[in-house]
């Protein structure tokens, strides 16, 4: 398993990031965690619909997304808010989506990120199509798709990987192996030792990295992106990490796993090792930590305010959402809806 930064903050290889960049990304990690905890607490207060926390997976998302060009396509899931935010998806829209509002799925024009996929496995083929189109349109854009260990059991994962390899499209398959598919442990999802080795069956390079290691994730993703951009085709990256929280706020991990397991992984926290790395280099102080936490808090509160400030959706939006121009039967139904 590829690793550059140990849980205790020691480098085992050359860091791909200078100190400034490392500080920038540490700040992003703090943002991500603040966002995630806010999501959990808002849901508990009934202000969000079901929420799927990603605590423990921040480095996998931030490290990989940091390696992207601003116009690279991203197709991710319900658990990838940090990656989406890194690629320009507005915080307030991420929250809006979680309140149960379609408008949360509509990022600004410059943001090349699809709304999060709720179905498991079905979205990877879309990334393959985006990547393929980029080549047909002579763009240099790469498409990256995020998915979990569980998603690799779906037939669509297989078809997406195969099309990507056969047509050699610029696509990066980024799997966050967080150990669980709801209640099913990784070991019972597939008998293959690693998820990375699934690439072999497609004649595609596959690499397994420490998903809690910001540097390793950044490095592996940069390499895959470079290969894709230079016409080298797709790559499968398995980022080994862990979902320390519940599957969603509706889930009770106590039913299927030993709390000790999560504690184990808390000791491999993706933020802490970067903090140690920075502080050992006089690039981290408690003051700065307090400052960025406060900034994150304010920024996130602002976003929550905007999301909650959205007026209730109207039936016009519902009917107009279906087609570019409303066919007669929808106009008709819209009228009836008016009279309830």
């Amino acid at each position, binding site marked *: 398993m590829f690793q550059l930064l140990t849980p205790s903050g020691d480098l085992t290889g050359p860091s791909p990031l200078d100190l400034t960049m490392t500080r920038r990304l540490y700040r992003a990690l703090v943002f991500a965690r603040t966002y995630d905890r806010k999501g959990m607490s808002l849901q508990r207060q009934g202000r969000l*619909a*079901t929420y799927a926390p990603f605590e423990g997976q921040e480095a996998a998302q931030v490290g990989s997304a940091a390696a992207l060009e601003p116009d690279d396509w991203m197709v991710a899931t*319900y658990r990838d808010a940090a990656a989406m935010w890194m690629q320009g998806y507005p915080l307030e829209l991420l929250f809006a989506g979680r*309140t*149960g*509002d*379609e408008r949360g799925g509509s990022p600004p024009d410059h943001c090349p990120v699809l709304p999060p996929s*709720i*179905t*498991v*496995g*079905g979205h990877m083929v879309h990334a393959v199509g985006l990547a393929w189109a980029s080549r047909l349109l002579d763009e240099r854009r790469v498409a990256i798709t995020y998915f979990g260990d*569980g*998603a690799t*059991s*779906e*037939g*669509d994962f297989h078809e997406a990987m195969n099309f990507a390899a056969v047509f050699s499209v610029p696509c990066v398959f980024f799997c966050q192996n967080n150990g669980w*598919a*709801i*209640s*099913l442990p990784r070991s*019972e*999802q*597939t008998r293959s030792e690693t998820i990375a080795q699934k690439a072999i069956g497609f004649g595609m390079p596959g690499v397994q990295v420490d998903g809690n290691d910001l540097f390793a994730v950044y490095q592996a993703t940069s390499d895959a992106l470079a290969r894709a951009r230079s016409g080298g085709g797709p790559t499968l990256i398995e980022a080994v990490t862990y979902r320390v929280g519940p599957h969603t706020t*509706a*889930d*009770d991990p106590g*039913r*299927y796993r030993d709390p000790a397991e999560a504690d184990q992984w808390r000791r491999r926290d993706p933020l802490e090792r970067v903090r140690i790395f920075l502080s050992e280099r006089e690039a981290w102080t408690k003051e700065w930590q307090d400052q960025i936490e406060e900034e994150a808090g304010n920024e996130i509160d602002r976003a929550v305010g905007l999301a909650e400030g959205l007026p*209730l*959706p*109207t*039936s016009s*939006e*519902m*009917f107009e*959402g*279906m087609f570019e121009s409303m066919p007669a*039967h*929808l106009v008709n*139904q819209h009228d009836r*809806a008016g*009279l*309830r």
Partner: protein
Amino acid sequence: MAQALTDALDLALAKDHTVLVIGEDVARTGGVFRITDGLLQRYGDDRVIDTPVAESAIIGVSLGMAIAGMRPVAELQFMGFSYPAFDQIVNHVARIRNRSRHRFTAAMVIRIPFGGGIGAAEHHSESMESIYAHTPGLKVLIPSTPYDAKGLLLAAIEDPDPVIFCEPIRLYRAVKEEVPDGWYTVPIGEARVERSGTDVTLITWGAMTKETRGAADLLATEGVEAEVIDLRSLVPLDRKTLVGSVVKTGRAVVVHEAPRTAGFGAEVAAVLAEECLYELTAPVERVTGWDTVFPLKRGEHLYLPSVERIAAAVRRTLQA
């Protein structure tokens, strides 16, 4: 209703060693809605099986088991996740008997929680029962009471042919009712008269039975006696009860949550237009979900037929 379904599965597992429960998260967690809660502990992981996330395999593998003599009760977590298994259901489960002219059969049940109203995420509020009703070779059952839930599920498990068993999510915990202990079945293909009346017939199924009953009660306060029919079984359809009631009342309103166009309400209206046109004294109204994607939490109220919408349709029918 949840408890009644659990009872049924428990009884079936206890009675018949060929019955097994298979699906995503059905064992350890007892399923997203806890319908299979406790069964793993009682019957072991050979008969209560957590699978990888792969709906097509869940159904296709269950079919193989059924051909070999097992009686799988497969769970698909939400109707929106039954689509990856659509090919297996339509091309194989529904056809193996005919393809082999009775040599191989698919005595299996596919349980699918369906319908909206709980503010769930996209794909979690689907009502596409009519696509299964349109598929030759399937039976399609939809209980709306705990009593029917248990009795129909046991009937489905006993049935020698494949059954799509749609469970209204909104009713899992909404309706409480004492159900008999022990094994009993509700005959497949018989509608239930939820309320009898003489002025108009309201035909519905699933969670909408609640709103429809509500509308009937509201209308009663206006002196209108509506007969409410809960189909319970879309395929086979109980035309006798359906047509009989409309012949009596002369008016019909069909209510369902699914999108309007080509929803099962169309089939009901078509049957009436075929079999009792002359008895109809008013156009057959359909109160349905719109031809839109089911909205997310904040917009659900814009989509779901309400007591008021149903009552309004009935009033139009009565004035016609």
